[in-house]
């Protein structure tokens, strides 16, 4: 029973595409991928979440000029959320001084922290920092890893053995642990944290790129390029790289969630962005001291923001993987 359903769903997209190819426009891999992506609900939700995250992360620093160093308003220390969240939580807890809907103020929608700073504002800026940190570390890991992997896979000589043994050594460490150790000795800062997370992720991309290069290097189009006198570097750049991109992009999207978690974890341990600058992991670490006295808002909003970000990227990555990986098509 299950077999027949899976076969019928598997067969559907393929037959649709061959029909389209024959009847209307020529086959375009890009359009095909986008169609597959659109069919997957996880990719749609993930894409939507990711879009909002990226939009906010770009808009907040542009629209709001935040000066972390001078931001301090001690009279508002640990003020609970006002605005709608305050209204709802007052109704839920049956607080005696609950404001009516007309007298709502919106100075601290997410409440205030121990320095009387708006958590709403700091979560917004912290999100930009976390996203930028995640994107940069993935970009570093992807570009370094892809170059190493493509050259290793294409040349398959001494460079292959040396680089892959090095990757084995990096992979021998649990990634967060290696990142912690590297930042500890290099000095705690956001940039060092990003680089450390990137270093731990390089092997993932290097191995993937190497596998793709090995799969492609004996293809006819590569032999053809070589026979018309193309140099090795040109072959790697023009022929091997474009044919290896799809899995690398999928891995990068999935890696973005991991990179956001790991840079935030470094921040949580005090090894990332330094105070007073806002960063989600550091905000969570600071919230620990006020947790026992019931000040939930200091922890809940930065926490939910990280979950929201990682969930968005993971969903998008899962959807992209299903859409781009030919081995998975129709199987699940």
């Amino acid at each position, binding site marked *: 029973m*299950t*077999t027949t*359903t*899976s076969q019928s769903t598997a067969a559907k997209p393929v037959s649709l595409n061959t029909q389209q190819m024959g009847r209307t426009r020529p086959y375009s891999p890009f359009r095909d991928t986008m169609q597959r992506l659109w069919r997957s609900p*996880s990719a749609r939700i993930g894409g939507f979440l990711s879009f909002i995250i990226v939009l906010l992360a770009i808009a907040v620093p542009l629209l709001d000029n935040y000066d972390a160093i001078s931001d301090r308003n001690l009279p508002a220390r640990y003020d609970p959320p006002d605005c709608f969240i305050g209204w709802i939580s007052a109704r839920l807890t049956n607080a005696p001084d609950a404001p009516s809907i007309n007298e709502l103020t919106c100075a601290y929608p997410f409440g205030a922290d121990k320095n009387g700073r708006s958590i709403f504002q700091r979560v917004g800026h912290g999100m930009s920092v976390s996203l930028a940190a995640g994107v940069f570390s993935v970009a570093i890991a992807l570009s370094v890893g892809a170059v190493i992997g493509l050259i290793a896979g294409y040349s398959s000589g001494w460079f292959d053995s040396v680089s892959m*043994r*090095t990757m*084995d*050594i990096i992979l*021998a*460490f*649990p*990634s*967060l*642990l*290696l990142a*912690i*150790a*590297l930042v*500890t*000795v*290099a*000095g705690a800062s956001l940039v060092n944290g990003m680089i450390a997370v990137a270093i731990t992720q390089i092997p993932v991309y290097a191995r993937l790129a190497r596998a793709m290069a090995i799969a492609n290097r004996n293809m006819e189009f590569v032999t053809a390029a070589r026979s018309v006198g193309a140099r090795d570097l040109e072959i790697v750049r023009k022929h091997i790289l474009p044919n290896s991109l799809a899995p690398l992009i999928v891995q990068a999207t999935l890696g973005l*969630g991991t990179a956001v*978690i790991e840079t*935030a*974890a470094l921040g*949580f*341990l*005090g*090894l990332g962005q330094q105070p007073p600058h806002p960063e989600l*992991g550091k905000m*969570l*670490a600071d*919230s*620990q001291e006020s*947790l*026992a006295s*019931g000040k*939930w808002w200091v*922890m*809940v909003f930065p*926490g939910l923001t*990280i*979950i929201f970000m*990682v*969930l968005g990227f*993971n*969903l998008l990555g*899962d959807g992209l993987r299903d859409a781009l990986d030919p081995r998975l098509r129709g*199987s*699940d």
Partner: protein
Amino acid sequence: MGKYLFRRLLETIPVVVGVSILVFLLIHFIPGDPAVAILGDRASPENIAALREQLGLNRPLHEQYLIWVGNLLRGDLGNTVRGNIPISLEISHRFPATIELSLFALFIATVIGVPVGVISAVRRNSVIDTASMIGALFGVSIPIFVLGLLLIFFVGVELQLLPFIGRLDNREVNLQTITGLHVVDSILTGNWRALGNALEHLILPSITLMTIPLAIIARITRSAMLEVLNQDYIRTARAKGLREGTVIRMHALRNALLPVVTIIGLQLGTLLSGAVLTETIFAWPGIGKWLFDSIVARDYPIVQSVTLLIAVIYVFVNLAVDVLYTFIDPRVRAS
């Protein structure tokens, strides 16, 4: 099979050597003089010179490495900078706490994750399947430190259901240390009050630590089972009239186990590094919390030793998983 094991063991040697070199070099990645970095700018030149001598920084690099490795092989990890206590002694005191937490979390994750994965695969696209896969997605998307804080606040502070600091209420229960694993010790000594107390303290940290492994184990089990359930021999088993339960257990699950065992083994590494965050949040006195405290105190020899220890364990767990393969899957033995 002996040949395979021997080759696999040989392959591990360069990795372990590489790991040791990288960990050894860590202290040389410190910008400037490591001794100054540890003691601070205001330390006297004599103290700095003494620490340089203690860390062996005055010798050539290769000599330093060989001495360091020689000491390692004799079980000497050096001394802590603060307090001058042998690091290996401290590790032997603290490691049981980490082991207890990690193994407990892994055990629960496996006991829940494998059946959830199997049921999801058997009842594919059912409500149970969808719900558990959405749960798994949340499981991998919630960072350990966020989940830990949420649990502390809602379960520990608001509802006051469970303790969230340390391993035992030392004021209320006395426990004789035998293995250092509180659960085992309390069973061995028949101290049921301590057992209850130790288990209570284990719940929140292990929930925090196990969500990611649980989600991954459930997902991998599901996809491995789905692959196997489409095989011809499953149809044959059903056709010859075996009961569905027998087909699932004896024919499908056994063949799906290979990727599941791999992923369970790999999770131990994730757990040991996740322990740094979990132990810090729950004030759990294991090596993860110790690592965090040493980072704050800039006690680099401790950072080096703990990093090395966890990495070496990780390498050997991977080796053990590969060895386990040969017992589960005769095909690996044959090749």
